[in-house]
């Protein structure tokens, strides 16, 4: 990290122009809680940092367009964790934001940064994937939206074009009789997740499953969705038998690696356990609305 140049542009267009001048040696800076150490240890060729925190429209939580919730990409974890409207609707996301690092890190770390860092263990990516989030991407000329599932390509790698900036994360308003929940396993509170899981469920008027979506983190090169749960569970109550099905399918969907934190086999088994817990908690939330 020698001879660094620091820019703090006030608009997305200026930021993109700065990045396009030398994309190979430049990085966007959001909260910096990942990037700062990366610059010291594994990005020796980066000599330009473009801080996005002076661009006002990238921060903040609100509704619209339509009924969807919009969370600015530079919104900090602490602001998500404590936001009453988000907690009421998207507790899975708030619970994930609440376990990223310690409080001083959560006062800096941003939602967009967590997603663009593209760690397979990114805690907020798992609930956002289960909640069918979209990301808004600006490249200075135009803005478009894509499903979150299309953002990460692999560890530390996104599909974003050079210069493109994630400006916001969109969340569809929760359906009636829906619920969502997050579950996570770590060695210690400050460590990254060994495995995490998030569930989003919608129940019908009789309290039976209409749809069940489960996402898993840290068990593949990107956060993944467990497919075909809907087919197995639609029309059924989310009872112990259904949770066994969730556990089996999640364990089968997991493609973990062995590393210093855990073996692949343990991760896969825990993916099943956490998935079942998340579905159980999400169903309880959905039932709470119908009572």
């Amino acid at each position, binding site marked *: *990290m*020698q*001879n*660094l*140049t*620091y820019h*703090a542009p006030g608009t997305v267009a200026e930021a993109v122009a700065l990045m396009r001048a030398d994309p190979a040696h430049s990085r966007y*800076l959001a909260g*910096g*809680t990942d990037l*700062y*150490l990366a610059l010291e240890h594994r990005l020796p060729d980066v000599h330009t*940092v473009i*801080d996005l*925190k002076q661009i006002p429209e990238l921060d903040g939580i609100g509704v619209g367009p339509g009924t969807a919730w919009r969370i600015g990409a530079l919104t900090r974890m*602490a602001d998500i964790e404590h936001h009453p409207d988000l907690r009421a609707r998207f507790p899975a996301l708030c619970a994930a934001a609440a376990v990223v*690092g*310690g*409080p*001083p*890190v959560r*006062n*800096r770390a941003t939602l967009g940064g967590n997603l663009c860092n593209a760690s397979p263990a990114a805690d907020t990516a798992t609930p956002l994937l289960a909640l069918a989030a979209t990301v808004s991407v600006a490249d200075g000329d135009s803005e478009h939206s894509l499903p979150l599932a299309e953002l990460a390509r692999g560890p530390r790698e996104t599909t974003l074009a050079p210069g493109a900036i994630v400006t916001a994360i969109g969340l569809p308003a929760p359906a009636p009789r829906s619920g969502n929940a997050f579950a996570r396993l770590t060695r210690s*509170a*400050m460590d990254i997740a060994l495995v995490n899981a998030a569930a989003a469920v919608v129940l019908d008027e009789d309290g039976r499953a209409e749809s069940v979506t489960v996402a898993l983190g840290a068990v593949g090169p990107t956060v993944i969705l467990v497919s075909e749960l809907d087919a197995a569970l639609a029309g059924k109550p989310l009872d112990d038998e259904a949770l066994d099905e969730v556990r089996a399918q999640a364990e089968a969907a997991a493609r973990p690696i062995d590393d210093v934190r855990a073996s692949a086999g343990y991760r896969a088994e825990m993916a099943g356990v956490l998935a079942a817990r998340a579905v159980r908690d999400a169903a309880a939330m959905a039932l709470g609305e119908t009572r």
Partner: protein
Amino acid sequence: MTPPRKQALALTLNGASHEALVEPRTSLLTFLREQCGLTGTKRGCEEGECGACVVLLDGRPVTACLIFALEAQGRHVTTIEGLGTAQHLAPLQQAFLESGAAQCGFCIPGMLLSAHALLEHGGHPDEAAIRRAISGNLCRCTGYDRIVKAIRLAAEMEHGHP
């Protein structure tokens, strides 16, 4: 190699306007300790894990080791030197003293600033809220109990008994 080009930084540091030229790669931690001489902010893990370098940025606890000094442009930074003086301790510092909450002391500046941010909201945080607020500040000496008691005592000193 050409020497790094310095960039201008203007911030409010412990309540006073402060201007400096800094090398862009300088962390807020290094800037405070080595350029401003404010060595109350401690250099610990330098990975955002231990909380020894916690300062308040616009009132919120942050790890100064993971922030470029230039990111503090136009912002308010409060270090432990801004909380009280040896002659006039802040209530929180007095409470730590009276409770025997400091042993080696290395974590205490960060601990005090995290606690200060908690008590700024007023009222009487319960033990769980206190422990949550200092969960980013590691202490290897005290076992935390006296620190938690001290923060409760400070809340009483500042806001009266619950």
